[in-house]
């Protein structure tokens, strides 16, 4: 099986890659602005850490699309399509752990009744409360990911790319933490000392949620689960349709589907393979332009298999 990206996806993938490079550049600008305005507020520190963490998915995506294209070798005969999922799972685990740790920090801040100091800065000879600068930085940190997330979402669906989809969803959801952050800073300004720790806690919860969501997306593939939908833990609709079709064509056979990267692999156990080589696309029932999703069908013949008793038990038709 070739590791080349399906022809139809090449321009989309190029666009997604460009978007992720822009995403990294804009995110760095957000990190710089937030870092400059951070002060001693727990809310701002947590929001800044979240902004730093949002660099992980685009970086994983850009590394993944390169690794995915590597040709199979003797030591890795199945290619490297699953390497990105592994990287993504590791990043998701880190995100989850950090979200948990920030949540504990916020709770400790609240418990210790820490009062955040936000004083004034001098702007061209005028005294300005640093909180307003923080609010401006937070607004900037809302707008950038909101726009990027909306641009990435349709591409992620077209490419059926989990990393890109999780990235887009995370960015789209970032506005809520931005609002929480602004609420935290204005809350401090109004004299509610607890607003800082509470807002930081909300942001930490969101980081934890992002981590768990990414972890779920990555682990289903790593344990060879049936392909999942991009936006939920349910079985993907196209996978369910393939499963139904194969069961109908090969009654009594066991059908197993798994996913590596964006490609579905089907295994039909206990069925005699067709005599002639068959294009996997013939088993595709959905939109013909997305037939690239089904990359391979292999058969495990019923015992005893008269034609090739000592040979390999599976036959790849893709």
């Amino acid at each position: 099986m070739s590791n080349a990206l399906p022809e139809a996806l090449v321009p989309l993938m190029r666009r997604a890659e460009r978007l992720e490079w822009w995403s990294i550049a804009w995110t760095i600008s957000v990190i710089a602005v937030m870092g400059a305005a951070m002060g001693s507020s727990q809310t701002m520190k947590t929001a800044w850490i979240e902004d730093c963490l949002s660099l992980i998915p685009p970086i994983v995506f850009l590394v993944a699309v390169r690794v995915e294209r590597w040709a199979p070798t003797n030591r890795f005969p199945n290619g490297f399509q699953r390497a990105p999922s592994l990287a993504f799972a590791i990043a998701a685990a880190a995100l989850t752990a950090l979200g948990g740790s920030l949540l504990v920090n916020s709770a400790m801040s609240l418990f210790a009744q820490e009062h955040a100091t936000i004083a004034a800065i001098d702007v061209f000879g005028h005294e300005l409360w640093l909180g307003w600068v923080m609010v401006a930085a937070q607004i900037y940190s809302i707008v950038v990911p909101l726009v990027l997330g909306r641009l990435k979402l349709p591409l992620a669906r077209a490419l059926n790319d989990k990393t890109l989809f999780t990235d887009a969803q995370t960015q789209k959801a970032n506005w809520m933490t931005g609002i929480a952050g602004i609420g935290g800073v204005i809350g401090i300004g109004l004299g509610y000392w607890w607003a800082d720790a509470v807002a930081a806690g909300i942001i930490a919860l969101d980081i934890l949620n992002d981590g768990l969501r990414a972890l779920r997306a990555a682990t289903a593939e790593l344990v060879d689960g049936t392909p999942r939908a991009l936006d939920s833990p349910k079985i993907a609709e196209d996978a369910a349709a393939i499963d139904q079709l194969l069961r109908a064509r090969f009654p009594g056979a066991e059908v197993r589907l798994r996913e590596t990267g964006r490609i579905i692999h089907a295994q039909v156990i206990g069925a005699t393979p067709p005599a002639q080589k068959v294009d996997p696309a013939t088993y595709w029932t959905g939109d013909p332009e997305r037939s690239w999703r089904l990359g391979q069908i292999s058969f495990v013949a019923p015992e005893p298999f008269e034609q090739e008793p000592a040979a390999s038990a599976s036959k790849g038709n893709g």
Partner: protein
Amino acid sequence: MRALFPLFFFLLASCGDIPRDPDGSLKRIRRERVLHVGMVEGADLQSIRRADALIAALAKDTGANPAVTRDGQEALLLRLEAGDLDIVVGGRFAEDTPWKTRVTLGPPLASETAAASTLNDHAVTRNGENAWIMLVQREARKVAR
């Protein structure tokens, strides 16, 4: 999360008087006309002059009379943290002082380098009393000039 919207607009609507002190230090000083000052014992003459100038400016701003307590630096800072004092003056701090996180050090009123380390003369306030801190820092910058 959508429930945060009304809260957010409520917060924005009440932005006229920002920042405020969680424990109301500035309002209390103005209302009671008493400014609780901690003066570090053993401070040198220059430090005392700067501290006096700062306290006089703050007293004028707030219309309060200074009530001065003299003691060692650590003892005064602990009382400041507990809310018994509004400001501690005449203290000197290394740049990496652990007090940095526990209290708010104002802009340095003066610096002195000795034995490869710098000691800064700071007016110190409680963390989080942001309106009061802004006033102290504004006056401290004037005194430092």
